[in-house]
């Protein structure tokens, strides 16, 4: 372990190569590219994020796997890459959202939470004794000031907003597919349909309600917003992000 001065672990394991690259981050991105495909599509009235739930064995109880995670009532995240790293980041994201709520009485806007997560991921590229996170994230959320927004965060800690994107194994084909099918006024229903078609393109094995996970961001009605605001801050915010149940996924797949 680290001695008083830090010892061998006081320096970053991520160092520049002569060509100006951070090789560890490149390797982390390779780990992401080996992960199952995930995608997100921003519609005019919401966002859909989805991923494959690939189990390495039929003996695995896949009802317990959670690849699309809720962070706070208005934000959800899906990933490609290393599951354990995602789990840790989700725990940090949830804590960060609650800390924000404790100070401001409301949940963070998507952009602010994304920035916090990205900072955590960047710190793992410039701290002693740690490696970068082996995940890319797609953060989908709604806030009253910007509406629905979709962000991708990479192991380097850089993030940017997408209208539609895919990460993981099949991302190149998936993105090409999305580019062809995306338009700015796509509805949420169409977006879910398109997301399923895109996933199907590179899917290995049977695509059923048990082998995919879908999360949606919906835009609340105007009346809902007013009600929650003047509960004196004690009213529970209506969730705008939710995961689709297996029955709902089954219905969409049947279409």
């Amino acid at each position: 372990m680290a001695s008083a001065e830090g010892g061998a672990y006081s320096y970053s394991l991520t160092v520049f190569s002569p060509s100006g690259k951070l090789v560890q981050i490149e390797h982390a991105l390779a780990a992401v590219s080996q992960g199952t495909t995930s995608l997100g599509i921003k519609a005019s009235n919401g966002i859909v994020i989805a991923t494959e739930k690939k189990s390495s064995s039929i003996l695995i109880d896949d009802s317990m796997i959670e690849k699309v995670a809720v962070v706070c009532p208005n934000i959800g995240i899906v990933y490609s890459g290393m599951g354990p790293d995602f789990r840790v980041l989700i725990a940090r994201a949830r804590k960060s959202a609650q800390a924000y709520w404790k100070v401001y009485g409301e949940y963070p806007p998507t952009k602010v939470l994304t920035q916090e997560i990205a900072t955590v991921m960047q710190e793992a590229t410039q701290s002693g004794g740690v490696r970068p996170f082996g995940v890319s994230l797609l953060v989908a959320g709604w806030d009253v000031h910007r509406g629905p927004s979709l962000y991708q965060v990479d192991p380097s800690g850089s993030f940017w907003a997408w209208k539609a994107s895919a990460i993981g194994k099949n991302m190149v084909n998936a993105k090409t597919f999305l580019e062809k099918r995306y338009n700015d006024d796509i509805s949420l229903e169409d977006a879910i349909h398109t997301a399923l078609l895109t996933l199907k393109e590179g899917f290995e094995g049977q695509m059923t309600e048990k082998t995919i996970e879908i999360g949606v961001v919906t835009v609340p009605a105007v009346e809902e917003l007013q009600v929650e605001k003047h509960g004196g801050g004690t009213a529970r915010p209506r969730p705008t992000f939710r995961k689709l149940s297996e029955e709902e996924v089954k219905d969409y797949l049947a279409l």
Partner: protein
Amino acid sequence: MSIMEYNGGSVIAMVGKDCVAIASDLRFGNQSLGIASNFQRMFPVTDRTYLGLAGLGTDVTTLRERFRYRVNMYTIKEERDIEPQTFAHLVSSTLYEHRFGPYFVEPVIAGLEKAPSGFKPFIAAADLIGCLNFAKDFVVAGTASSKLYGLAEGLWEPDLGPEDLFETISQTLLNGVDRDAFSGWGAVVHVITKDRVVTRTLKGRMD
């Protein structure tokens, strides 16, 4: 004597029709000795939100600077102005951070918050450890608070326009601080509407 009465001073805020008003006196004293008649205890937070702080003078100044720092960081990070209700929660959590060694202030917040229909009037007050009070009509704070409560209860009515609200809040404040030894020595009123803030200095009894 209580530390909250050491420097003196009072603040009041009222809700009108599509407007809010916040007003305070200008006295700063050392117990019975009046020292300054130009002590600012109200500050703009954004174009549409004002914060008034009654209580110990040094804490008024220090908190003004702390909130300016936190609100500036918020504005830069979120790329937008803070809403009054969010700011009220920020005030509350900041004060509670010092639950067992508090700032001796009673904050009053007044502003217009964004609503789908335009702008909605918002006022709030807190105690020295951050308990928020979201009143719908008026809030009072300071050494003359008990007098201000009585006057406001009598004079306030709903849906006053900016000019009428100015008259009402001015009379409430003036007559309230005139009955309090530790408040007075001049008064300032800000009336906030969606387009602008009108600031007026009142002529009051200088005793």
